[in-house]
C-alpha cells in the first residue's frame, strides 16, 4: 500500500468521471433524439447539418409559394373556361342578332350623358369643388363642400338644386355604384374645379380628382351624344352587357384576397367597370400591361405563372374610340373586351355587317382565351413538376440530415448499457479491493 489511505483513488475517480461523462452524453442523445447538440459533439457534421436545415427551410417555403401559385393557376384556368363559355354565348347572340328581322325597325333615343364613372367622395373639410355646366352659351356653377355634399345623396340634391331650370339632372349612375350621372336633353359639358384647403387635399369629389393641400385640380367632361338603339336588340344588348360584367368579374377573380390576373400588383383589381374603353367595356387599372412577377422552383428556375388580365382579355391594346356613333373601325383582333364592346356598339348602331364582324372578332378572342388557358395549363404542369422535385429533394435532404444529426438509438442504447455495466463493474471491483495494511495484522 502506497501513500494515502488508498493509492488507486485518483485513477479510479478519473475513470469513473470519464464513464459518467459518457453516460450523461449518451443519455442526452437518446432523450433528445439528436446526436449533435453542440458543435464539439461532431465538428465535422456542423456544416452538413446547418446546410441541410437551411435547404429544408428553403424548400419548404418554395413549396408554400408553389402551392399558392398552383391554387391561383387552377382558379385562373377555371375562370378562363368560364370566359370561354361566355364568349361562346356572345357568338351565339351575335349570330341571332345578325339574323333578326326586327333589326332597324324601331329606335329610341336617350339623353346626352356624362357619367362620372367614379364613386363619389365627399370633399375634405376646407376643400371646395365647383361644377360648372356649360349649356350652349350659358353656364351654371354649383359649389360642393364637406357640409353640403357629405354623401352621395346630399351631393346629388345640392347639384340638382343648382341645376334647376337648366334641363340637366343629376342621378345615381346605373353603371358604376356610388357614381353620379348627369343627363340633359341637349349637349353640354361640365368642368370640375377642385381646390384644396390649407389642411385638406386628397382624392375626392364627383370625378375623384387628386388635389394637394392648397392646390387645385381641374377636369372637363363633355356629354356623350344620345345613343340610338334598336329596341328589338334591347334584349341582346342587355345580355351582352351582363356578359361584359361577368367577363370583368372573371378578370377580377380572386384567391385568398389576391387577384389571380392582377399581374404585378395582385392586391388591386385589374379592371373597373367604368364604362370607358371599347364599347364601355372596362378600364384596366393594373400596374403594367404584362405580368413580370415570377415564381421560382428550388433551383432558382422561374416562370411567369399567370398572364395579367390585360394580356388575357385586352391584348393587343386597343385605344378606346372617340365616338361610338357612327360606329368606329374594327378594334385589333384578339382583344376580348374590345370584341365584346364592338359587338355591343354594333348592336346599338344596328349595323348588320359590324355584328357579323364582331362575331368573327369574338372567335379570334376565343382563340386568345384558349391560348392563355394553354399557357396556364403549362404553368400548372411546371408547378406540379417543381412541387414533385421539391418533395423528392426535401425527402432526400431530411434523410441526409437525419443520418448526420439524429441519434442511432440502438447503438446509443447499446453504448449506454455497456457504460452502465462498466460503471457498476468498476465500483464493485474497487469495493472488493482490500483496504487493509500490515498494521491491521501486527497488533
Amino acid at each position: 500500500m502506497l501513500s494515502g489511505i488508498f493509492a488507486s483513488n485518483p485513477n479510479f475517480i478519473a475513470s469513473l468521471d470519464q464513464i459518467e461523462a459518457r453516460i450523461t452524453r449518451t443519455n442526452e442523445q437518446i432523450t433528445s433524439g439528436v446526436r449533435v447538440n453542440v458543435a464539439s459533439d461532431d465538428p465535422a457534421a456542423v456544416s452538413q447539418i446547418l446546410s441541410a436545415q437551411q435547404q429544408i427551410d428553403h424548400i419548404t417555403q418554395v413549396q408554400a409559394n408553389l402551392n399558392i401559385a398552383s391554387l391561383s393557376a387552377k382558379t385562373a384556368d377555371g375562370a378562363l373556361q368560364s370566359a370561354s363559355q361566355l364568349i361562346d354565348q356572345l357568338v351565339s347572340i351575335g349570330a341571332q342578332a345578325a339574323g333578326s328581322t326586327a333589326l332597324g325597325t324601331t329606335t329610341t333615343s336617350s339623353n346626352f350623358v356624362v357619367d362620372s364613372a367614379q364613386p363619389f367622395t365627399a370633399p375634405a373639410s376646407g376643400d371646395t369643388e365647383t361644377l360648372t355646366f356649360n349649356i350652349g352659351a350659358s353656364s351654371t356653377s354649383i359649389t360642393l363642400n364637406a357640409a353640403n355634399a357629405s354623401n352621395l345623396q346630399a351631393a346629388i340634391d345640392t347639384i340638382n338644386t343648382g341645376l334647376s331650370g337648366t334641363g340637366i339632372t343629376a342621378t345615381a349612375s346605373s353603371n358604376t355604384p356610388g357614381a353620379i350621372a348627369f343627363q340633359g336633353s341637349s349637349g353640354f359639358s361640365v368642368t370640375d374645379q377642385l381646390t384644396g384647403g390649407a389642411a385638406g387635399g386628397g382624392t375626392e369629389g364627383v370625378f375623384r380628382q387628386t388635389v394637394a393641400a392648397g392646390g387645385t385640380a381641374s377636369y372637363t367632361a363633355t356629354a356623350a351624344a344620345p345613343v340610338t338603339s334598336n329596341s328589338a336588340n334591347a334584349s341582346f344588348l342587355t345580355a351582352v352587357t351582363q356578359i361584359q360584367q361577368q367577363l370583368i368579374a372573371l378578370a377580377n377573380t380572386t384567391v385568398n384576397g389576391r387577384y389571380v390576373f392582377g399581374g404585378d400588383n395582385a392586391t388591386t383589381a385589374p379592371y373597373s367597370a367604368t364604362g370607358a374603353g371599347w364599347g364601355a367595356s372596362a378600364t384596366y387599372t393594373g400596374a403594367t400591361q404584362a405580368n413580370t412577377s415570377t415564381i421560382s422552383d428550388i433551383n432558382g428556375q422561374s416562370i411567369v405563372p399567370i398572364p395579367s388580365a390585360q394580356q388575357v382579355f385586352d391584348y393587343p391594346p386597343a385605344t378606346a374610340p372617340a365616338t361610338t356613333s357612327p360606329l368606329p373601325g374594327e378594334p385589333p383582333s384578339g382583344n376580348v373586351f374590345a370584341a365584346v364592346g364592338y359587338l355591343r356598339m354594333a348592336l346599338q348602331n344596328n349595323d348588320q355587317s359590324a355584328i357579323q364582324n364582331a362575331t368573327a372578332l369574338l372567335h379570334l378572342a376565343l382563340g386568345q382565351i384558349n391560348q392563355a388557358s394553354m399557357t396556364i395549363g403549362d404553368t400548372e404542369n411546371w408547378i406540379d413538376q417543381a412541387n414533385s422535385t421539391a418533395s423528392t429533394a426535401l425527402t432526400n435532404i431530411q434523410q441526409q440530415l437525419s443520418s448526420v444529426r439524429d441519434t442511432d438509438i440502438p447503438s446509443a442504447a447499446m453504448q449506454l448499457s455497456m457504460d452502465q455495466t462498466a460503471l457498476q463493474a468498476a465500483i464493485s471491483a474497487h469495493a472488493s479491493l482490500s483496504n487493509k495494511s500490515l498494521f491491521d495484522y501486527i497488533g
Partner: protein
Amino acid sequence: MAGLLSGLQTAGHALDVMEQAMSVIQNNVANASTPGYAAQKLNISSVPFQDGGGIQAGTVSSSRNQYAEQSVQHQNSLLGTASQQAASLSSLQNIFNVTGKTGIPAALSNLYSAFSAWSASPADATTQQQVLTAAKGVAQAFNSAASNIGQIQSQTDRQVTTTLNQINNLTSQIAGINQQIRYSGPNDAGLQANLYNDLEQLSNLTSVDVQIESDGTATVLMAGQTPLVSGATQTQLQSSTSANGIAIMANDQDVTSTLTDGQLAALVNFRNQTLPSVVGNATQPGTLNQLAQAVASQINSLLTSGQTASGVSGLPLFVSSANYTINGQTVYVPPPTGQIETLTFTTPSGASVTATVNAGDKPPTVIAEINEQTSALGIHAVLNQAGTGITFQSDSAFSMSDTSTAPGIFSSSTGTYTAATGASNAVAATLSVNPLAGSDLAPAQVSGSANGIASQLAQLGTATNPTLGMSYTDFYSDIASTIGSQESAATTAQQTQTDLLTQAQNMRAQVSGVSLNDQAAQLLQFQQAYQASSQLIQVISSTMQYFMQAMQQI
C-alpha cells in the same frame, strides 16, 4: 567487566536509535495522507568495534525525488491548460447553435424564407411585414450573440483576476515557507510538505520551474522566465485590460507573451486570441462581425438597387456601426413656406449630387425626393430609429453641406457634416433594422421583373456571398465547427492530461510516498531490534549480577 559495561552502553545506545527510527516511522504513518509529504527515513550506521561497536543514528533523509516532482508539476500545468480551455470554449460554443432551430442560423433562415414568401406576393402587406419582422429577428440574433460573447469576455477577465489572486496567495505562502526553512533548516518534513503542496497547486495555475537552493529554499520561475518567488521575496502578478485584450504584468513588465501552460495561460489565450477572432478587437473585425456585415451589405445592396411598386428607389433594410452616418436633428421640421433646404452630398472621389427639401415636405415624400438624387452615390436617407428625424447612411465615406438657413432636416444654421463610422468590430452588436414601412421594401428590378429583387433575396440563403467567398451557412458553420473542434480537442486533452497527471502522481508515490506496509515492516524490525537490545541488556545485567555475587562470596 569493562567489556560488559561497554556492551551495556552499546545496547542502551541502540535502544535510543531504535526509538528515533520508530519515531520517524510514526511521523511517516501520521502524514501518510498529508498532501506534499514525502516518506522520511532515519539513516543508521554501525560504530567501529574499536570505538565500542554498536549503532548510531545519522540524519533523517527524505525520499523526495525532484524529477518526479517536476513531472507532476509539468503534467499539472498541462492539465490546467486543457481544463480551462475546455471550460471556456464550452461556454463559447453554446452561443453558436448548430441545430438550425434557434439563434443566428434560424433567424437567417427565417429571413430568407420571408423574402421567398414576399417574392410570391410582393404587394401583400402581410408578406412585407413578415420580412421586417424576420429582419428584426436577425438583428436581435446577432445582437444577442455579441452580447453573450461580451459577457463571456467579462467573465474571463474576472477569472483572470481570480487566478492571479490565487497565484499571488500561493507565491506569498511559498515565500513564507522559504523564510521558515532558512530558520529551521531544509530537513523539516512538515515545511517541505507544505512547500511542495503549494508548488503543485501553483503548477495547475501556471507553468513553473522550481530550483531548490542550497539552503533548502525554493526559487520559482513562471514559464522559466519570470521570477515569482526568490527566497522570502515574492513578485505580485497583476492584470491590465486594453482594447487589444488583457496583459499580465510582473514588476510593471508585460510578461503575457511568456505564458505557456496552466490555467492562467489558457485564460489569457482565450481572452486575447479566441474571443477576438470571433467578436473582433481593435485590429480585426472578427468572424461574427464579418458575417453580420456581409449579410447586411448583400441584402442592402440588392434592395437599394431595386424599386418599390410605385417606382421609388429601394431603401437599405439593415444599419450598423459599420455604416457611415450623418444624423439630422432628432425631430424633422418641414421648411416653412417660401424656404427650401438644399443639401449637397459629396464622396471622396469628388462625385456630388444636390437634393432639395421643399417647403412643407413631409416624410416619406422628403425621403423619396432625396433618395431619388442620392441613391446613385450609394447614400440613402431613412427615418432615424425614433422615427421622428432623418438619417443619411452609406457603406462608404461621404460628406454633406447644408446651405439653407431655414430649419428642416438640420437646424437653422448652415453647415458641413462628415459621415461618421463606427468600428467594424461592433457590427453584430449594433446591427438593427431601419424603421421602414412595408411599402418601402423594393421588390422590383428597375426595368425588370416586378419581383426580381425579392426573388434574388430569396435565393441568397443558399448562394455564395461574394464578401465571404462562401454561403453564409458555410461561413457560420466554419465559426461553430472551429470552436467545436477546439473544445473537443481540449476535452480530449483534459482527459489525457488527467491520466498523465495520475500516472506522474503514482510514479512519485512509488518513489516518495508513504507505504504503510513498508512502514509496518520497518516498525516490526525496529521493535524486534529494540527487544533484542533490551534482552542483551538484561543478559549483561544478569551476568554482571552473577559476577558481583561471586565477588562477594570470595
